[in-house]
């Protein structure tokens, strides 16, 4: 099923991966981007972070502003279409590119074709590491009890559920406690959480209770937006639970500050 232009493989035979860090990681938590970069390199990829990347356009798409979404989608397609793979540390943004770009270009066949070609080479980070690169973390340890929340887009649009758990099971000393309602939305929903704050709050309040009742010290997930929502609620409630993107843990970077802990990096 090689959709990748073989000329891109280079002499090394290592796939050329374009890393799309996502706008939230770029703005709020660069550590996740560096964790992704390190993991992809360990998994035998040549990684490039194209400078022309901004946002996948999902906020515009979900707001009904298809013209804006199309403009941003074109931007992203142009920035990434020459890579063997485009990898994203977010199921939600990966789902946008993989499933929704082609819907956006229903009436622009040329762009639709380019969107479909790109979609075939687009992967969420954790599933790319396991499914495409058969990557297993080695020599990573973290003595902690954690719980995992499955973000909805990754889970339902891309079928990501086993992959993060498989990767995390190779982290020495880490034990994962099951989270009741691990597959239930946390109430983030992109702009939803600020458009309907009180509904969003009622939802995340329940999620925070479920997280607390696992007794875990760490909350892990694969999407920064959802993590910010849950960690922000936990912190407001005075909880001691700390949150990391699963990639940070797998890359051995969870000895650093958790989400919302003072950091300059």
């Amino acid at each position, binding site marked *: 099923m090689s959709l990748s232009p073989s000329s891109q493989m280079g002499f090394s035979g290592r796939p050329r991966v374009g890393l799309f860090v996502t706008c939230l990681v770029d703005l709020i938590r660069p550590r996740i981007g560096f964790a992704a970069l390190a993991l992809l390199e360990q998994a035998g990829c040549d990684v490039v972070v194209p400078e022309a990347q901004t946002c996948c356009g999902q906020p515009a798409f979900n707001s009904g502003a298809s013209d804006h979404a199309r403009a941003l989608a074109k931007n992203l397609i142009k920035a990434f279409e020459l890579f063997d793979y485009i990898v994203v540390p977010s199921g939600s943004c990966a789902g946008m590119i993989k499933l929704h770009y082609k819907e956006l270009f229903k009436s622009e066949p040329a762009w639709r074709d380019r969107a479909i070609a790109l979609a075939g080479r687009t992967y969420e980070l954790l599933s790319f590491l396991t499914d495409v690169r058969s990557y297993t973390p080695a020599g990573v340890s973290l003595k902690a009890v954690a719980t995992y929340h499955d973000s909805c887009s990754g889970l339902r649009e891309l079928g990501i559920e086993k992959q993060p758990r498989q990767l995390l099971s190779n982290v020495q000393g880490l034990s994962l406690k099951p989270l009741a309602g691990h597959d239930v939305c946390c109430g983030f929903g992109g702009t939803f959480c600020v458009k*309907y704050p009180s509904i969003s709050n009622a939802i995340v309040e329940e999620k925070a209770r479920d997280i607390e009742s696992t007794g875990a010290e760490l909350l892990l997930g694969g999407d920064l937006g959802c993590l910010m929502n849950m960690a922000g609620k936990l912190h407001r409630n005075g909880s001691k639970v700390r949150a990391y993107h699963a990639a940070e843990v797998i890359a051995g970077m969870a000895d650093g500050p958790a989400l919302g802990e003072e950091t300059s*990096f």
Partner: protein
Amino acid sequence: MTALETDFKPFKTRVEDALANRTLKVAIERTTGTARLKRAAAVSTWPNFAGARDLGRRIKDHVTSNLDHYLIEFERNAIASGAKVHWASTAEEACEIVVDICKAANAKSVTRSKSMLGEEIGLPLALEKAGITRVETDLAEHIVQLAGDKPSHIIWPALHRTREEVAELFRKHHHTPQNSDEIPAMVRSARRQLREAFLRADVGISGANFLIADSGAVCTVTNEGNAELTTTIPRVHIVTAGIEKLVPSLRHAMVLLRLLVRSATGADFTQYTTFHCGPKRPGDADGPEEFHIVLVDNGRTHMLGGDLNDMLRCLRCGACMNHCVVYRQIGGHAYGGTYPGPMGSVLTPELDGLAGSRDLVHACTLNGNCQQVCPVDIPLPTLLRGWREKSWNEGLEPRSVRRALWFWAFAARHPFLYRMATAVAVRVLRLFGEAGWVRSMPMAKGWTSHRDFPKPASRTFMEQYRAAQRRARK
């Protein structure tokens, strides 16, 4: 407070009222929580649920794309069975037809078995205006009627009422007051009350879960047997049904029945699954003398072949709302339309207009759980997004939202400008933060009124990445 009072408040006020009502939350969770568990169990023990779901989807799509054919076949067979078939293109027409039949039958009192289509076309109000006594015979609808409410769920119309509230209503309204809060005693009281109405009614009105084209029969499913008493005892039986309820034959109905019941309650089958075909024949022990079927369009042909075509597959099982994180917090009345939850948010703009219901299409996290549990795979998130696009294109979105999105999209189209803007943004954001978190920030109350916002790193990823690249080159 009843649903009728909440109708005129704006969506956000209705939401606040609902969220402040802790009893409501408990009531919703009791019913939908059980429904979710039972459905999950039913689906997990169904060897080829995915196959059945796909078949169900294809049956409904087949009917939708051949609606004219099956409507005519149904009408022909229904007439042959002795039924009278009426066609109503609007809600008003449908109500008029029903009221006229009632008047022609000189009806003083009618019994109704639960029908969401009846609610959709406003039949309760139409009967009231015509001076006809209406008795709801479904236990939950009976509660709703006593309370002067509207249904808050399409399967459990009274799920917003706790047992204690129901006991209070029964004490107030039932002939033979009973003073027990025990469910069996309350059911007995309702049965005594309703039995009289069943025997007294001149006309019985029911809905339809399926219209069987090759026999002209109408299928209803209930768990209380009230539909059977509604449709067999009175002189006249009227069915009101949406035209999308058609299936080619009994075989097709069986596929959909299994999907419908397991998705709705998790049971294998309902207590009563009845096929009504024509009026009483010579020699029949019971049955109505007249059997009328009112086929209602009310916007359905407008959906046909358009963006909402997939919605015509809906079986009205309620699984989407049972699994919706928003419904579970705000309940059915906050939605304001006849149908709540995800399917309601898709249908209400079509039935009542987008301008008055644009909040419904936005008050959704697009998490996709509704589509996942939908027995006929309706892409509810996609349909909601379609409404959002329409709302955007028709200029119904607030100017502040349009402006914010425009600026953001403009910057994001220009990477250089975007890099500068984001570099400034993180530095400004950091000014509001202390000890890692932003607790309050102007223009971000939506977030910070309920949660803290993680203070960003001092430089964006792209700044740090570029600096690292430069160092590496040196």
